[in-house]
């Protein structure tokens, strides 16, 4: 249904906008910048900074006839109010006349800016926001030029107030616009900061322990219109005007948030380019203008620190020693030759589409097997009935249903949590189906709990409630299946015009997620919710490019330890199985030839015969395929280690230089897609590209049906987005970057989308009478090798722990913070870990966060004993 259109004039420009549009936004659409501080286009207006004051006139209506009054010349008679009005709180009305450039309006702005400056410290010279500061810009643009306020009468306030260890507040700079508080309340749904006191003593305080306890805190520094809120990571580290910007994509989770990496060359780093901060880049179909704190603060692993691998290593006399690329490539090519089906290439979704394509192609050429290193299955289904092109959470509202099953969404893919929540706020029916409570429950219309281990059965129960061909249900799901809640949810899902399912891996491993995905696919097929925009299946994958790996034909092994043990040669790329589970050690018996390709000397790399140093995603080009099946490009931000000096061709002001020096001889880390291509060259295989990611992508698109028609040029296309952010008027949307380098493109669905599926195995799962079952869960901040390079986050990550229910804790006589000895029944290995207590968990359930050093990749039998 189209909204009614309203026409009005703003500073003489005619504009037609939907009814309900605010004057400030209507102005923006025709290029009239009405200055704002408290207003933000992503949040409801509050009208408190009073910066957007304009003159507003409305047509006069004859009370008797209800007709508009006219001037002698026939034009509408316009009546202006006695006061200036706030453009940010006033909706447009037919025939309205907005004047923002009159003497009265200009005086209003000047007055307000003079007021603001009476309390502002004017420490722009040392302020991190200086150079991209709305207050600075607006004062220059609309301010009085000089102040009549006596400097000595300024109120001085604390300048280094930690709101926790991640965000600092400068009380003097704060102009009390409340954007941060409203963001936390309304968008992040973590109301952990607020105003305290009043008047000139009004100040932002944190209510939480640890301070500012939210995964979204960094966004408040973007939308802060002054330098009051800064991240500990960036404050006092660089000036905005020294920074160049490189478009990038976050590689921590499958959302694929669009990023800008800000870099500069600096003396303290030996004249090298260094990433100074990570900023959100607008993509309204992906992350809007937000990113989570993991994306913002967890980039340090990609930087060029001392621990990075710089040269290939070759095992000589039992020890890994530096070697030339020539030597290492020769050796590997020689050993891979003829190994045939004895070769397993194991790679993770941390790699780009191009990397996985070349690795897969090399493995295929050698006759080996390509295996995806992951703990979650179901990608064979998301390639068929995944999100159809044109799907966008922003378009989901009253006519949509969203089922989130088996996922702690904010922990697994924060931006999807944010966008699903907003869709629910717009009226989409949100069904949360999980074994335990999660933050998403707060916004759900149906919060359904299934017994641990019964995710697939729970989805089948939804199918059962709808379909004439009813799958049989195991006993322990019957109670849920009979509930009116579940029946209501099933009905709402089936009857919604559009519906999507997000399935995760909360408490599940490969086998369980495979069954779950199959059940979800059945539900979508049964209810005809696939193959068109805003319908389909979304895997909440553990890694950024898992979807891309599935699209390119990579699949996990259902019994990886055995497969690895039987292989004759291993090529392990961007994966560290030995750190995740010591069981994999058996595969490294010294009998087989092992090649590891990574950024760092991982536990697995220490066992290799050859180690190839890889470039981080900051140092090279590439593309990822997000869970929503959007292929997005990222660009190099840094000069690769040991490359030739950059040839900088006077880059644009906010753009990073193109850093691809051609090398005469290979030196330093290489791109993950290039190394297999070098090997292919040595082996005499044709059809490999290594010179650039775009060449690889061209071959990939030519050889992969779902990528057909895509080019790097197409991925780089942009169109105007709303709200308009990041231009000279960064006061409007904050310092998120405008997207000038590509919005990406969504993949077509595989042809065999509608094929009927068999019912998945949904056997009964019962918790044991003795001991317990450890279920893996995902925490956003984990102890994985990548994130641990970001020291700033260590306090938030914490030490390894497990979560027990209250009864279980009582039975073991342990309280919150106590320690248990956790013994894995099968391997009889044991470990002492700290305990957190969640009163809602049932007995015999142990939650084990992934990447915290516990070898729990799926439901795992354990025994527990108090360890004081």
């Amino acid at each position, binding site marked *: 249904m189209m909204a009614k259109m309203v026409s009005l004039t703003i500073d003489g420009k005619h504009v037609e906008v939907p009814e309900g549009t605010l004057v400030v936004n209507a102005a923006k659409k025709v290029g009239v910048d009405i200055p704002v501080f408290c207003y933000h286009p992503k949040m409801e207006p509050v009208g408190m900074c*009073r910066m957007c004051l304009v003159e507003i006139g409305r047509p006069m209506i004859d009370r008797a006839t209800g007709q508009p009054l006219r001037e002698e010349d026939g034009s509408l008679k316009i009546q202006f109010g006695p006061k200036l009005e706030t453009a940010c709180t006033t909706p447009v009305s037919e025939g309205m006349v907005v004047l923002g450039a009159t003497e009265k309006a200009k005086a209003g702005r000047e007055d307000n800016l003079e007021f603001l400056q009476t309390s502002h410290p004017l420490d722009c010279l040392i302020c991190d926001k200086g150079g991209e500061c709305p207050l600075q810009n607006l004062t220059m643009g609309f301010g009085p030029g000089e102040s009549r306020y006596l400097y000595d009468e300024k109120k001085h306030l604390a300048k280094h107030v930690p709101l926790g260890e991640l965000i600092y507040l400068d009380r003097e700079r704060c102009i009390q616009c409340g954007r941060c508080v409203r963001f936390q309340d309304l968008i992040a749904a973590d109301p952990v900061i607020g105003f305290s006191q*009043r008047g000139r003593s009004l100040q932002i305080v944190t209510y939480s322990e640890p301070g500012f306890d939210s995964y979204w805190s960094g966004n408040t520094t973007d939308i802060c219109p002054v330098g009051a809120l800064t991240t500990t990571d960036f404050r006092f580290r660089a000036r905005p005007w020294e920074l160049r910007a490189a478009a990038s994509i976050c590689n921590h989770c499958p959302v694929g948030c669009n990023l800008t990496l800000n870099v500069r060359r600096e003396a303290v780093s030996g004249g090298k380019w260094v990433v100074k901060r990570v900023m959100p880049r607008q993509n309204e179909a992906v992350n809007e203008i937000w990113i989570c704190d993991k994306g913002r603060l967890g980039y340090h692993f990609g930087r060029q620190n001392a621990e990075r691998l710089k040269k290939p290593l070759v095992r000589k006399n039992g020890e890994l020693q530096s070697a030339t690329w020539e030597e290492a490539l020769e050796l590997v090519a020689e050993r891979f030759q003829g190994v045939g089906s004895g070769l397993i290439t194991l790679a993770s979704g941390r790699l780009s589409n191009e990397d996985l394509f070349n690795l897969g192609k090399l493995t295929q050429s050698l006759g080996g097997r390509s295996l995806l290193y992951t703990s979650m299955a179901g990608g064979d289904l998301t390639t068929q009935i995944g999100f159809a092109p044109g799907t966008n959470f922003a378009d989901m509202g009253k006519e949509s249903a969203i089922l989130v099953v088996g996922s702690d969404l904010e922990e697994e893919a924060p931006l999807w949590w944010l966008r699903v929540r907003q869709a629910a706020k717009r009226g989409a029916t949100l069904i949360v189906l999980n074994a335990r409570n999660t933050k998403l429950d707060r916004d759900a219309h149906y919060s359904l709990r299934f017994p641990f281990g019964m995710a697939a059965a729970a989805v089948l129960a939804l199918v059962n409630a709808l379909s004439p061909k009813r799958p049989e249900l195991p006993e322990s799901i019957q109670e849920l299946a009979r509930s009116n809640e579940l029946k209501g949810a099933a009905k709402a899902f089936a009857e919604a015009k559009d519906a999507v399912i997000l399935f995760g891996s909360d408490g599940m491993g490969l086998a369980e997620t495979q069954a779950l995905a199959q059940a979800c696919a059945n539900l979508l097929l049964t209810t005809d919710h696939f193959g068109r925009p805003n319908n389909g299946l979304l895997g909440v994958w553990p890694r950024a490019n898992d979807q891309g790996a599935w699209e390119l034909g990579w699949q996990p092994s259902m019994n990886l330890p055995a497969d690895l043990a039987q292989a004759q040669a291993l090529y392990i790329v961007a994966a560290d199985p030995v750190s995740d589970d010591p069981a994999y050690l058996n595969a490294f018996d010294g009998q087989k030839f092992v090649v590891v390709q990574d950024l760092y000397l991982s536990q697995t790399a220490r066992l290799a015969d050859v180690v190839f140093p890889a470039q981080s995603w900051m140092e090279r080009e590439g593309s990822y395929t997000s869970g929503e099946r959007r292929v997005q490009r990222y660009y190099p931000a840094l000069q690769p280690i040991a490359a030739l000096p950059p040839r900088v061709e006077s880059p644009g002001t906010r753009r990073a230089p193109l850093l691809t020096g051609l090398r005469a001889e290979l030196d330093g880390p290489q791109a993950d897609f290039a190394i297999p291509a070098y090997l292919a060259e040595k082996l005499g295989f044709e059809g490999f590209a290594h010179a650039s990611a775009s060449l690889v992508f061209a071959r990939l698109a030519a050889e992969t049906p779902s990528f057909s028609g895509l080019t790097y040029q197409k991925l780089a296309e942009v169109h105007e987005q709303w709200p308009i952010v990041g231009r000279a008027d960064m006061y409007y949307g904050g310092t998120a970057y405008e997207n000038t380098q590509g919005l990406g493109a969504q993949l077509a669905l595989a042809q065999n989308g509608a094929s009927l599926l068999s019912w998945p195995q949904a056997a009964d799962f019962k918790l044991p009478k003795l001991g317990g079952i450890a279920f893996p869960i995902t925490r956003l901040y984990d102890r994985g090798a990548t994130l641990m390079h970001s020291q700033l986050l260590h306090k938030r990550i914490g030490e390894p722990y497990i979560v027990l229910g209250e009864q279980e804790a009582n039975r073991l006589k342990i309280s919150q913070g106590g320690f248990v000895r956790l013994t894995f029944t099968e391997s009889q290995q044991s470990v002492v870990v700290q305990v957190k207590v969640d009163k809602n968990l049932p007995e015999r359930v142990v939650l084990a966060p992934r990447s915290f050093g516990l070898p729990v990749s799926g439901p795992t039998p354990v025994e527990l004993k108090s360890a004081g």
Partner: protein
Amino acid sequence: MSKEKLPYFLLRHREIPDLDNLEVYRRNGGFQAFEKAVTQMEPTAVTEVVKASGLRGRGGAGFPTGLKWSFIDNKNWPHYVVANADESEPGTFKDREIMEGNPYQFLEGVAICAYAVQANAAYIYLRGEFWDLAARLDQHIAALEAAGLLGENLFGTKYSLRIYTHLGAGAYICGEETALLESLEGKLGQPRLRPPFPPSYGLYGKPTIVNNVETLTNVPLIIEKGADWYRSMGTEKSPGVKIFSLSGCINKPGNYELPLGTTFRELIFEHGGGIPQGRNIKAIMAAGASSSLIVADERALDTPMDYESVPSVGAQLGSASVIVIDDSVSIPWLIDKTTHFFRHESCGKCTPCREGTFWMSHLTERIANGRARREDVELLYDVASQIRGKCLCALGEFSIEAVLSGIERFRSDFDVAVGEIQVAAQVEQVPASD
């Protein structure tokens, strides 16, 4: 000019001893109006009577009470009634006397209002300093519940009502109705953007009627005696009686219940006993600290105190807290007091008020302490003018009233303060007005 003294209608405890005892109040006709309303009148009929009476809000804005009640959004439920007992305007102390002396009439007014808008819960928001009073009101409410006058199924009907008291934490701004609602919800006391107004979006986002204590205290008598009776007092557009809180340079400060339209002269010189020590009256603040300074000339003294007439002397009646200023008072000293008050009480939500009151207080302090130059007076006038018309709520707009009118109407006091006029014995020789 003195007319026949009317009996008390609001301050009835001055004539009837122990009126804060429920038995006494009921013996004197108490709760008959409420019973009549609940058992014999449609809710809208109650609103119509109040509308017809012409009763206007006694908190300061003078908005027609019945009209406000009729704005309640009947598509959105539940409804709430909130009695504004924040009474924080300097110079206002009428609601306190009502609640102390004649609490049941006030509570009956709350109950009738709640019935009229079909609210089943009403809150009395008291300023934090009224903790003692809140405890007494709680006892009165308990007595009403014990007597079956509050609670479930009142008078055998389906109508139920509970009344609760709530203490603020000491902020002037919480007398502003939307800030009051925020505070009542447990949030920081800052005003909301209006519209929407409370009758459509009030407490917890639900339709809410917020009325001043004195306003509500009028209601039982209006229901009992009728709109025409009420209109027989006061003026045509400002009917009824009003409690004038008289303070400042006056012989007999206190609350005076008089018909609206009584002149300043009658209040100050007949009832208030005139100015101490025979000094001359210089200025009048009719609405507490939020007032413009009225030059107390003959015309002003003969001006009737009602909502329409006071603007003719460049001021507003407001809450009718009349502060009398005599010729011993320097106007710069006075506005230094008011600007410091507003600076202290500004909630900080909007820029002009937060920064403007802060700045003004520096300037008035310098001027009042003789450390200023002529330019500072000009600057003060400029700053105050800059605040005008830009604030989110009325607090900021009120903060400049005394400043602007003070400089405009008592300029010579400022000239003295900045040393432009030399005086030997300063205070006595300052002209009463110019």
